[in-house]
């Protein structure tokens, strides 16, 4: 039996049919679709959020603007989205840890983090992180002291959240450019912390 005997995936067929029906009507072009895919593959991703975090760590006035209005502050670095949503940046503190979820679907701060990882969209994460955040964070390898308060932020179409992690101790001498590579996607979702020595 060769590959050619496999029946085509009905979902792939449906996607192709939808695209053809809409492009045939002139509602959208193949070039525009490819442009979107290329943009998300090449220009948008956690490296954008890492630059925002590193700037906030090294520029107190920027940090204030970021916490005040995330959408405007990330636009200063050239990042923005067409979805028109608010971006709320929540800051970790010694006694407070923040973690982000979208319980109903998959809302996520695309301009700063790109597209969400598959676990973020999975029913297990979406339902459990609200009910038992500490247990879920432990499974990610993040053990928080009992006295740390955990705040869970549920995203929506109107409001997306990003975590501003704590700057790790021992990084006082590092520049903004040196700090950005330390900041992981998971730290900006809130399922990890930033380590001074990132593998």
């Amino acid at each position, binding site marked *: 039996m060769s590959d050619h005997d496999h029946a085509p995936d009905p*979902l792939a067929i449906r996607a192709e*049919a939808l695209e053809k029906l*809409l492009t045939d*009507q002139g509602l959208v072009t193949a070039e525009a679709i490819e442009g979107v895919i290329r943009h998300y593959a090449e220009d948008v991703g956690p490296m954008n959020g890492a630059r925002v975090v590193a700037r906030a760590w090294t520029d107190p006035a920027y940090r204030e603007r970021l916490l005040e209005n995330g959408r405007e502050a990330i636009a200063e670095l050239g990042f923005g989205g067409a979805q028109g949503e608010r971006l709320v940046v929540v800051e970790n503190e010694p006694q407070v840890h923040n973690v982000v979820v979208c319980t109903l679907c998959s809302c996520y701060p695309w301009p700063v983090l790109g597209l969400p*990882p*598959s676990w973020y969209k999975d029913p297990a994460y979406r339902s459990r992180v609200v009910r038992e955040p500490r247990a879920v964070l432990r*499974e990610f390898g993040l053990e928080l002291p009992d006295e740390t308060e955990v705040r869970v932020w549920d995203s929506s179409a109107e409001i997306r959240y990003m975590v501003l992690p704590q700057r790790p101790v021992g990084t006082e001498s590092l520049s903004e450019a040196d700090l950005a590579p330390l900041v992981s996607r998971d730290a900006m979702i809130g399922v990890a912390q930033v380590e001074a020595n990132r593998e």
Partner: protein
Amino acid sequence: MSEIDQLLPDEDAGAPPRSNGEIVFEAPWESRVFGLTLALHDAGRFEWPEFQFALITAIARHEKSVEPEAYHYWGCWLEAFRAVASQKGWLTEAALSGLESELAARPHGHDH
């Protein structure tokens, strides 16, 4: 292994910071329908909350009907997009199913 562990990509640790090791799309059609949705939105053809509502509805229905292992996020996205396209009058069910039958009946290797 916990549920969450099973969801984490194996290659996460050593991956480049640009994607942190995550494969976002597993099949080409998933990226095509994502691109199609955003390109239409960028062109002002619909308001984002219209799609968001359809996606929430599709996910809620799908979660009730399948086992957790069978959960398929991009299948929900596709269903939500179809719903919006239908509401907007961009297609009829007859046109969609007719074209689907036509595409499914192609001999394999048609695009080679």
